[in-house]
């Protein structure tokens, strides 16, 4: 009987492991059917003199720069990106480089490392930080 129970547990383990690979709480995805962001109400953050509407905050080609005095001038790819599909780096990684919970913290990483990683991404040699879906 013990062997049967032990065998059952081992049989269930892979299923549990698969379910835990990409938990929804760790990899949130924006819902598809949501209303357009508000373009009227201005929002701000503590210690910032800047104000943005939600539509401006969500703009992938001109994301908010809440604390411009806390970083050097941004290159165009960081601040504005490249239309039509190259979103500004600051949209996800922020102007500080610290990123959102779902995006990488890039602040202070050596320049050669960043160049290597981007080059590796082009040639598919970069390793995933999350399990494949």
């Amino acid at each position, binding site marked *: 009987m013990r062997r049967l129970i032990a065998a059952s547990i081992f049989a269930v383990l892979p299923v549990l492991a698969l379910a835990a690979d*990409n938990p929804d709480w760790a*990899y949130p*995805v924006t819902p598809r059917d949501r209303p357009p962001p508000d373009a009227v109400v201005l929002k701000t953050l503590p210690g910032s003199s800047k104000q943005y509407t939600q539509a401006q905050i969500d703009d992938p080609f001109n994301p908010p720069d809440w604390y411009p005095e806390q*970083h*050097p001038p*941004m*290159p*165009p*790819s*960081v601040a504005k*990106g*490249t239309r039509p*599909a*190259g*979103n500004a*780096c600051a949209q*996800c990684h922020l102007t*500080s*480089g610290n990123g959102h919970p*779902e*995006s990488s*913290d*890039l*602040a*202070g*990483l*050596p*320049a*050669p*490392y*960043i*160049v290597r990683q*981007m*080059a590796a*991404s*082009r*040639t*598919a*040699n*970069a*390793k*995933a*930080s*999350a*399990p*494949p*879906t």
Partner: protein
Amino acid sequence: MKTGNRAGPWVELMKQVVAKPSDDDMIALSAYLESLDP
């Protein structure tokens, strides 16, 4: 990523971003990131 070997929930966004940056873009953004306090 560009060829599909790198996969994850946010890969589609980054695929488009890394597809066409020029060498100058990569140098500029990597220098900017290195200049930031971790």
